[in-house]
């Protein structure tokens, strides 16, 4: 029994971070129809942000707060300088953001070098959980991720800003006809999505190798998550990430990471084959 609980705890950790990543992707895609290939790099920037702020002598908790904000600012700049010129041309958004990802990655290589860096892990000790000694920081990662997801939903479903964003997602022109500044919302949303990726990178930074290529390992399952669940809603990526993450963790726990990756891809292909609109579309149809 304890083994199962520990497994659930371990996988919740991976799933919650994946949710953050795919939520950021979905927010950006939903509002702007931009497929953000640079999302992985935004995540990595979050990790590098923590690294840099730590070098500057800031306490870890402050780094966790500031780094995602810096990534959001970078996202804002990227939107203003590059992304907005590609709106309404889906293929161009892919090319533009892919180019952006190369620039960001190479920028990191030039500034920080190609090698791995270590973010000093906050020394929070361990607590006994279900008969295992569990590192407290992992619990913090889960709590922060869950809080950020809840915050995102609160913003989108409980604030005027979120209401306007949902209106823009549903019907951009009509939203503008009601006096909503859609450009401003584009900026804010892109920055917010980038910030979510930055947060994911920041909270994970002590648990991974911080290197310029670290983003890809999240980008792929992130995309898979929103593809599997469908792009129509904000709960899509949550459901998708839960599915992808759970299948991955379960298969990895039962067999090996090689089989896990294979299982995830096969499962995703089957889902997309039979529910091309995603799992969430199925639920909507039944409702």
């Amino acid at each position, binding site marked *: 029994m304890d083994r199962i609980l520990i497994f659930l705890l371990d996988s919740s950790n991976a799933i919650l971070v994946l949710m953050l990543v795919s939520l950021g992707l979905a927010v950006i895609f939903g509002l702007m129809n931009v497929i953000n290939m640079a999302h992985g790099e935004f995540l990595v920037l979050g990790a590098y942000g923590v690294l840099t702020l730590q070098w500057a002598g800031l306490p870890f908790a402050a780094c966790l707060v500031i780094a995602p904000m810096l990534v959001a600012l970078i996202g804002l700049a990227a939107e203003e300088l590059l992304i907005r010129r590609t709106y309404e041309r889906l293929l161009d958004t892919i090319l533009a953001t892919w180019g952006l990802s190369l620039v960001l990655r190479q920028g990191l290589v030039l500034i920080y070098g190609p090698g791995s860096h270590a973010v000093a892990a906050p020394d929070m000790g361990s607590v006994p959980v279900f008969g295992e000694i569990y590192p407290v920081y992992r619990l913090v990662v889960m709590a922060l991720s869950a809080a950020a997801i809840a915050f995102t939903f609160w913003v989108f479903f409980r604030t*005027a800003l979120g209401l306007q964003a*949902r*209106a823009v997602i549903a*019907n951009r022109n*009509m939203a503008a006809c*009601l*006096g909503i*500044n859609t450009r401003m919302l584009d900026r804010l949303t892109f920055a917010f999505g980038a910030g979510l990726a930055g947060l994911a990178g920041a909270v994970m930074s002590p648990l991974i190798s911080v290197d310029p290529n670290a983003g890809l390992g999240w980008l792929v399952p992130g995309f898979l998550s929103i593809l599997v669940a469908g792009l129509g809603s904000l709960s899509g990526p949550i459901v998708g990430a839960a599915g992808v993450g759970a299948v991955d963790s379960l298969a990895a726990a039962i067999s090996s990471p090689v089989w896990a990756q294979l299982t995830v891809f096969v499962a995703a292909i089957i889902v997309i084959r039979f529910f091309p609109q995603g799992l969430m579309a199925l639920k909507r149809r039944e409702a």
Partner: protein
Amino acid sequence: MLEIQELHAGYGGGEVLRGLSLGVAHGEIVALLGRNGMGKTTLLRCIMGLLPHAAGSIRLEGQPLSGLDCFEIARRGVAYVPQGREIFGQLTVEENLRLAALRGGTIETGYDLFPGLRARAKDPGGSLSGGQQQQLAIARAMVAKPRLLLLDEPSEGIQPSVVNEIADIVTRSVRSMGLSVLLVEQNTDLALRVADRAVFVDHGVDAASIASRAVTREILASYMEL
């Protein structure tokens, strides 16, 4: 309060408006009449800033609207009820109204106009009947406290009995608030009943401007029949 001069606009290569001029006075209801494809909807989209115009000018209270974004035009007091209503189907009735009330105004304006909406406040807009959706679209426009209301085919796809009821409510409200209205409507009887004046649009220009009462069957026939 609205002055349009020599407006040219179109989609892609084709010009739809070819030098249309038009004025709407304070508190005046103007019906735009004419056959399909003559540029009535195009004109409303131009006023709203959804479609750029190639030449000519649009002024609201003497201020030029040319080059402004749609949201800026909306914030200057132009409200739009588009053809097909375009309510936010996944948002609730109340959320639809709240969106319009974000910049001053209150959703109560909308409920007062159509009290039936209040009972559906928490339902998604998409679940309403056609008539109710039209009520919501009009209520949403009125909540924003506009100075100029653009109505595009408000009677389309709605039962005749409901149409008249809605028309009466809207007319009464508009009159009492002193709003200016530009109405595009296929139902000419309805249009002429509520409007002060009819402007006939033909091939992208204003062909005639006649007080509603003075519009005869012959005039109608000459502009409306093929």
